[in-house]
């Protein structure tokens, strides 16, 4: 009501003017009718009514909202002031937009990923269950199915619990579609009920489906259903072929459901997929478990319950099965999902916070400079009775306008930044939940207001801090002026530099650790190596058929023109864990209880080491004859030799290992020692052992192809060979080895790149600040410098004087920043690889870069000061 009157008061005023005019005319008519002359009538009418302007003003004020009107006037005034220095205004808005935009984007990601509750029913009661590894290195280790079974039997703290593991299937070609390798999750019947999710269509499996004898059933992800089956609902109840076997599609999950990860395209029933004898082991750590706590049961109670069970199992069977875990562990499902992303995301958010703070300080600094040049005006206004609040308000409106526009632009920037980020970082957990929502917008508004307050309040308080008269005095003799203000500006500058140094230190550490990471020696050839993965389904391939397939494949791939070498291995370097085994050495005395010897297990063909240029240090590689039935040889890595055969020749010794042959440990004779390779680029090499792939024990293989030049052009011919050998066999993950390794360093690359970008931006801002302050200082001291030069000061002396003056805040800021950087580096310790947090080289480099940039930014104004013409300088007064 009042608001509508406020906005329509201009119309109403025009209306009133007409009304008053009409009144006058009627009055004049009356007087004329009484016989007065028109002139006299007009005079009397006006006299009777009084001032029409006063009436109009009266109603105008009544219709206006005072605070709102004041604000609009302030904003209009601020806009005019800013328009007078468009360069400054645009710069400030741009900087604010970048700062606010980056903060909004990062906040949105942090909020969506780390804080938003999971989209499951009552997510606070969902926990992940783990075992502690024997060596204590992995407090959250994957679990053994036998231990899980005991938990399920003995624990009462849980409403429901479910076990699941990952797997993959070959989805057969049908109706014109190519065969495809898809990732799956094999889960027990309680899996979906425990999470509290229901399918979009159809149903999920129940206890009846989750049995070895049951008919095979599969639940599809929304994505696969849309892409592969065209979103046809009638697929529910129909069958599809997975690994050549018939599965009935019983349900389709909703589009938002992506658990345990976004790669999962189908869910199958665990107890149907995995034979019962494989689900009793107490020491085969390869499953995950999710559980829902009963209402009122705390995590501590639940943990102590399963921990006791694990303890008991260890006591009972630990002597014969030393890999049984000594205890259990647990964490909230949300913590579990986002655990790896917490530190990097918070570090990025902190960095964007720093950038925004620097931006605000910079704007504040520039405003103080401008306020200084308006000193006289302000003093006169104060002397004429302008209230202090009025002046503060003006300053605040200006920064409010700046940051509001910056915030609006920043919001748009953030929108695109998030879009980009989600595209680049598909690996972030809950990536599908990252959206800008009203909380993000509220955050933006809050940050905008805060920035305005920060950038505006410092200069605002500094202008009105002193009595008007003093300022008038001061500004009449400019060479003595502005001491206090200069000190404030230098302080802000030192702060700015300190923050910049912290960012630079962080950026330097992360960049160096990323470079270390990328340059770590994989232990094998990585360039011009192509990898393609395939999996021969057990249904169609026995041991003999696998070996036959592998040999045909190798012969044909090696015959391709352009192929320098080709080989097969079940897991390539950089691909990850790949499985391990406990080994015993019959030639050695038994190990003391509690000690284990573990080595990673690989299967490869005889040409693998040559193909990947892994050096054979001693002994030899396999022969073609060491195959099914006669594959009793093993090759070990250097680290295995060093760890388990210290001071002796391992060749001719044996390893007793169960790698799946008759499901019991068999002796294998060591025939060679090869160089170490890394299973992950970010991890040191582990003891490794290689068994012949031609043993036919596994149908899982990676084709490794090396070429002299562009190896990617060989991808299609190799896939065609696979197709011609088995038209239902899909090939997956066609990547060069460098791409494969790069994918695992994306986190480090992304974070370090962004932080470096932020640090550079801050450095630019800080140097602009330095330049601005010194220029202002030189201007302030123009006449003083003039006098000095006139009295015979050398120009070099002036240069040095000004340079030192300008560099002092930089030096103070640098010292503070190095200190802060040392503290901050402890916080990012977990993100560093191969770099100590207090890396001297980085700190020195940062100091040098900063001083260099500072010197350059100060040099221009200092040089200008030294070139001052004393006559003109003195005439300035």
């Amino acid at each position: 009501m009042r608001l509508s009157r406020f906005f329509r008061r201009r119309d109403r005023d025009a209306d009133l003017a007409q009304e008053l005019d009409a009144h006058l005319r009627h009055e004049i008519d009356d007087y004329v009718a009484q016989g007065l002359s028109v002139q006299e009538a007009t005079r009397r009418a006006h006299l009777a009514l009084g001032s029409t302007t006063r009436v109009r003003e009266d109603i105008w004020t009544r219709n206006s909202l005072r605070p709102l009107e004041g604000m609009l006037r302030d904003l209009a005034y601020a806009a005019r002031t800013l328009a007078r220095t468009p360069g400054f205004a645009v710069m400030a808005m741009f900087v604010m937009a970048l700062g606010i935009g980056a903060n909004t984007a990062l906040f949105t990601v942090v909020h969506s990923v780390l804080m938003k509750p999971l989209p499951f029913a009552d997510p606070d009661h969902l926990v992940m269950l783990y075992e502690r590894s024997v060596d204590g290195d992995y407090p959250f280790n994957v679990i053994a199915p036998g231990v899980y079974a005991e938990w399920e039997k003995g624990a009462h703290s849980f409403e429901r619990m479910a076990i699941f593991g990952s797997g993959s299937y070959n989805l057969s070609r049908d109706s014109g579609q190519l065969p495809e390798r898809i990732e799956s999750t094999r889960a027990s019947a309680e899996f979906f009920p425990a999470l509290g999710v229901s399918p979009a269509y159809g149903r999920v499996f129940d206890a009846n489906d989750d049995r070895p004898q049951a008919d095979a059933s599969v639940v599809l992800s929304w994505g696969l259903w849309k892409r592969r089956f065209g979103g046809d609902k009638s697929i529910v109840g129909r069958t599809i072929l997975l690994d050549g076997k018939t599965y009935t599609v019983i349900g389709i999950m909703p589009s938002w459901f992506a658990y345990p990860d976004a790669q999962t395209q189908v869910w199958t029933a665990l107890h149907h997929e995995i034979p019962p004898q494989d689900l009793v082991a107490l020491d085969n750590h390869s499953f995950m478990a999710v559980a829902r706590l009963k209402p009122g049961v705390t995590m501590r109670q639940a943990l102590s319950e399963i921990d006791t069970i694990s303890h008991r199992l260890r006591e009972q069977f630990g002597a014969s099965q030393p890999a049984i875990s000594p205890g259990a562990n647990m964490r909230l499902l949300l913590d579990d999902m986002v655990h790896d992303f917490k530190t990097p995301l918070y570090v990025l958010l902190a960095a964007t916070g720093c950038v925004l703070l620097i931006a605000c300080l910079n704007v504040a600094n520039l405003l103080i400079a401008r306020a200084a040049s308006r000193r006289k005006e302000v003093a006169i206004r104060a002397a004429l009775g302008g209230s202090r609040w009025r002046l503060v308000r003006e300053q605040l409106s200006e920064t409010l306008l700046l940051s509001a526009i910056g915030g609006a632009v920043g919001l748009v920037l953030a929108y695109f930044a998030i879009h980009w980020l989600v595209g680049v970082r598909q690996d972030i957990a809950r990536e599908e939940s990252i959206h800008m929502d009203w909380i993000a917008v509220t955050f933006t508004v809050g940050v905008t207001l805060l920035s305005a307050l920060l950038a505006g309040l410092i200069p605002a308080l500094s202008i009105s801090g002193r009595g008007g008269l003093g300022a008038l005095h001061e500004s009449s003799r400019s060479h003595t002026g502005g001491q206090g203000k200069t000190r404030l500006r230098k302080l802000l500058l030192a702060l700015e530099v300190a923050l910049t140094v912290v960012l630079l230190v962080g950026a330097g550490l992360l960049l160096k650790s990323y470079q270390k990471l990328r340059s770590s020696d994989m232990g094998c050839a990585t360039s011009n190596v192509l990898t393609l993965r395939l999996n021969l389904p057990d249904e169609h391939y026995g041991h003999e058929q696998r070996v036959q397939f592998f040999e045909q494949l190798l012969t044909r791939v090696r015959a391709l023109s352009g192929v320098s070498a080709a080989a097969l291995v079940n897991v390539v370097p950089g691909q990850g864990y790949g499985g391990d085994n406990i080994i015993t050495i019959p030639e050695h005395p038994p190990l003391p209880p509690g000690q284990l010897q573990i080595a990673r297990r690989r299967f490869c063909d005889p040409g693998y080491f040559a193909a990947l240029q892994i050096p054979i240090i001693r002994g030899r590689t396999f022969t073609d004859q060491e195959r099914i039935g006669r594959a009793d040889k093993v090759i070990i890595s250097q680290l295995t030799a060093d760890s388990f055969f210290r001071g002796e020749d391992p060749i001719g010794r044996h390893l007793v290992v169960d790698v799946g042959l008759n499901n019991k440990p068999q002796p294998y004779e060591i025939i060679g020692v090869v160089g170490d390779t890394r299973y992950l680029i970010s991890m040191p090499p582990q003891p490794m052992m290689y068994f012949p792939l031609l043993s036919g024990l596994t149908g899982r293989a990676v084709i490794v192809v090396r070429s002299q030049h562009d190896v990617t052009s060989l991808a299609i011919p190799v896939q065609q060979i696979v197709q011609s050998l088995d038209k239902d066999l899909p090939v997956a993950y066609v990547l060069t080895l460098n791409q494969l390794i790069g994918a695992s360093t994306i986190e480090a690359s992304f974070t370090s790149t962004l932080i470096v970008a932020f640090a550079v931006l801050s450095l630019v801002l800080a140097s602009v600040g330095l330049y601005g302050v010194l220029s202002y200082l030189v201007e302030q001291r123009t006449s003083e410098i003039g006098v000095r030069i006139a009295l015979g000061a050398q120009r070099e002396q002036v240069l040095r004087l000004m340079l030192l003056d300008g560099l002092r805040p930089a030096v103070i800021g640098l010292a503070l920043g190095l200190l802060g950087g040392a503290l901050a580096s402890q916080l990012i310790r977990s993100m560093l690889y191969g770099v100590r947090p207090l890396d001297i080289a980085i700190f020195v480099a940062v100091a040098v870069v900063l001083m260099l940039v500072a010197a350059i930014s100060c040099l221009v104004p200092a040089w200008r000061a030294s070139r001052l013409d004393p006559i003109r300088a003195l005439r300035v007064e």
Partner: protein
Amino acid sequence: MLQGTLDMLVLRTLVTGPAHGHTIAHVIEHSSEEALQVEQGSLYPALHRLQDRGWVSSYWGASENNRKAKFYKLTAAGRKQLVAETSRWRQLVGAIGRVLGEVEG
């Protein structure tokens, strides 16, 4: 004139039908036999106030001597308000009269 009485008088004037500002002022003066002089400068703010409160509505029309004028018309709410104010005024006058009556003797 007493605070608030102008509003009441304006509303009373409008009971007989719509009128514009000039008429209202003169009617009040005439009816009071020139005892009350309406300060024309405060009439218009009062009219606008009454309109904002919804007691009168306004429209532009032609006046008796064929000039354009803004007419004010009593609304239902205004009529109710007038009744309330009149009775309150009567009570006030009665009370004051009773007080003064004792001194008169």
